[in-house]
């Protein structure tokens, strides 16, 4: 079968004729992206010295630092990059966006809500960042009006639209274990006759933050396990090479590789008419794999100075080894902070206090135990519910704090009753079929703002499960969690404190915040 995109079924996946592999859910997305209006963008830079405009011809240095409220974030690339003509910086589709639009070096290769708001001000909402397809609450809304872009402007959220029912890698519908009802639809997009669940191309819209593009040797590392410990099924494989993949790319792990992710991003976010060529994909992936980022300075402290803790700064990530399990006391997730436990002779009192606070925060992250409970795809995979463990149990992968295994877990950030009140987001009622196994802790009827992995797997057990993301460069890319529900690093700590009834003291909270801000 050859479809509108010139896509041919080749057994385990789609392949565009003479082109790259396109996983099964993408053609439906691309079809909607082709329907969404494209308006002429005005990508003026304005007074925005660190913003890289799509199509700009600049020389991006191999090493750079960009200021943020907590100091500065460091950026490393494999070499100097001339952005002119480079596919990462070039609009590949119709709407004027490039990859760099949402993955800016100054924002730890994501885009912060602060930057989003600045771009709105500087361009009167005409920046391609605000493209109707997913930079507005719904393409059917009047574009250019602030209210139509409120989810992006207020919460840093882009619309992610996925076919429902989901599609397997070969494009066949996945038989879901649950039915979806739209309870609330403030964006209007889930009930929209053109873009919604009951349209001719049925699509569910959820709203998520863009994940940072960097430190990717860690993100793409594949646990050499035969069976996925979350699903109990065989691990996914790269449709091009047949090699096992890590299943940690994207918040629902829907794309197996950086190449397939780039295909989806081009056809959907950039509204390209055709998928990038294999050569373009290779250039994109090569560039992305060369990028490392991390906070490199605090307000008073250089994190990359000689004698600094060994995991800090982007060079530490460039030199690190992926796939090291760090939930231990002998080779820990973020190595050690011993250098900052005692006062250095020349340090001011305030510098010493900050360093010691960060070191204490690292101890809390690694060692402070609490009851972790009712978290599907963690407690439900054989560990028991609850377990008495620490933050590092889930955030166990050395250098990034991701999960070494496929990392989707229902931490409760998108599901009621644990999700924060988010009246701006859609609310769905998911009812599990009688023959299906229920969500392990929420039962057969679940209310959620984002079904997460369940939109891909169709499993009740996966409702609300979001793939853990890396913890680096946080100071440059607020807000946090996949739905932007934590506006600050403090809010991240507070969420977990409430969710798991940890009972951090004021000092412990401050220590954890300082620790996270330094990563």
């Amino acid at each position: 079968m050859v479809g509108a995109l010139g896509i041919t079924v080749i057994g385990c996946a789609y392949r565009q004729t003479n082109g790259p592999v396109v996983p099964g859910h993408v053609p439906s997305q691309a079809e909607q992206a082709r329907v969404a209006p494209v308006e002429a963008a005005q990508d003026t830079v304005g007074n925005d010295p660190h913003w890289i405009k799509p199509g700009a011809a600049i020389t991006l240095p191999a090493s750079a630092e960009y200021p943020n409220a907590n100091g500065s974030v460091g950026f490393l690339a494999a070499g100097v990059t001339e952005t002119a003509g480079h596919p990462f910086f070039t609009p590949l589709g119709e709407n004027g966006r490039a990859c760099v639009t949402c993955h800016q070096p100054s924002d730890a290769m994501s885009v912060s809500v602060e930057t989003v708001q600045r771009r709105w001000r500087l361009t009167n909402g005409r920046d391609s960042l605000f493209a109707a397809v997913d930079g507005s609450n719904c393409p059917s809304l009047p574009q250019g009006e602030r209210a139509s872009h409120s989810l992006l402007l207020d919460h840093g959220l882009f619309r992610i639209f996925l076919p429902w029912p989901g599609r397997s890698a070969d494009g066949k519908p996945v038989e879901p274990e649950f039915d979806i009802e739209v309870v609330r639809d403030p964006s209007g997009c889930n009930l929209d006759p053109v873009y919604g669940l009951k349209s001719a191309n049925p699509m569910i819209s959820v709203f998520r933050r863009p994940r940072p593009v960097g430190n990717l040797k860690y993100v793409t590392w594949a646990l050499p396990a035969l069976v996925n410990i979350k699903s109990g099924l065989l691990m996914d494989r790269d449709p091009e090479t047949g090699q096992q993949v890590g299943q940690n790319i994207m918040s629902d792990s829907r794309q197996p590789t950086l190449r397939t992710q780039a295909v989806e991003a081009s056809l959907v976010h950039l509204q390209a008419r055709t998928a990038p060529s294999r050569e373009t994909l290779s250039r994109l992936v090569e560039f992305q794999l060369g990028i490392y980022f991390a906070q490199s300075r605090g307000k008073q402290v250089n994190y990359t100075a000689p004698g600094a803790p060994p995991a800090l700064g982007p060079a530490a990530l460039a030199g690190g080894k992926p796939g090291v399990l760090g939930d231990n006391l002998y080779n820990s997730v973020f190595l050690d902070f011993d250098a900052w436990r005692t006062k250095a002779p020349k340090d001011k009192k305030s510098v010493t206090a900050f360093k010691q606070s960060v070191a204490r925060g690292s101890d809390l992250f690694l060692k402070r135990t609490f009851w972790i409970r009712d978290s599907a795809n963690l407690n439900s995979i054989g560990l028991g519910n609850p377990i008495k463990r620490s933050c590092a149990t889930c955030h166990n992968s050395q250098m990034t704090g991701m999960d070494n295994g496929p990392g989707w877990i229902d931490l409760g950030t998108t599901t009621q009753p644990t999700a924060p009140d988010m009246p701006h987001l859609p609310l769905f009622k998911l009812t599990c079929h009688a023959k299906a196994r229920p969500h392990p802790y929420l039962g057969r009827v679940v209310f959620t703002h984002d079904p997460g992995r369940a939109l891909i797997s169709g499993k009740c057990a996966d409702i609300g499960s979001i793939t853990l993301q890396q913890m680096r460069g946080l100071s440059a890319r607020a807000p946090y969690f996949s739905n932007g529900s934590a506006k600050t690093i403090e809010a991240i700590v507070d969420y977990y404190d409430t969710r798991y009834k940890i009972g951090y003291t004021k000092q412990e909270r401050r220590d954890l915040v300082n620790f996270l801000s330094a990563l």
Partner: protein
Amino acid sequence: MRRVAASLALLSVSTAAYAQDSGRPVAFIACPVVRDTALPCWLSSDGRKLYFLGVQQDLAAEFYPPQLKHRVLVEGYDMGGPDICGGTPLRDIRVSVMPEVSPECDEIIPAQGFQAPPALRGAGPSERHGPPAPRDPPPAPPFVEKTYSVPYPFDSERLRNRTINQLRDAAAYAIASRSPRLTVTGYRAGVRLESGVLAELEDIASLRAEKVRDVLIALGVAPEAITVRTADVSHTATGEQDWRQRRVDIRIEMP
């Protein structure tokens, strides 16, 4: 549909014939409770006695703990030994998490001075490198027909770390012996309780067998060499070692 085949004159399993050497067989479904010891202990009561089930471990362990918000099927032998963590230990214990959510099962009890028995891993981060998992040497001739038996918890087709290792061994043996035929038989079992026999999900036998088949193929066994079968033995539950029937057998035949 399944599932409880009521028995008119069931002997109470808990009062069944007491074998002096092997202990009293126990099989019941109840809420688990977790004790807030430094390393959490898991317990459950059949209404007459509190049993010690095991301690929190990790996925490499033999014992996978129960889950609050779920009832648990406990099977084993009461040997009458000294209490552990405030509960009577069970020999040959098997613990299965029942799939449906039971909100009433939500109790964490205080440590009350009890201590968990030593374990390879405590709460929090691990403190030392774990010992490498012992593995069998590569298969070597002479090869004979052989059956590998993979156990499961009740109503589950999920493969545990240790059972995946069994499948690795089975695949290695099949490949090394150039077996022309592997028969994978998934079983649906039952468990005899005081209230009657509780049978597993109707399609559990095929779910188990198909998953094992997929893994064997991923391990290099030729798909055409594998025959998949299912068997329903749920009616044979006796209340003693019923867990042995919850399994997949992989019979490796010789040329």
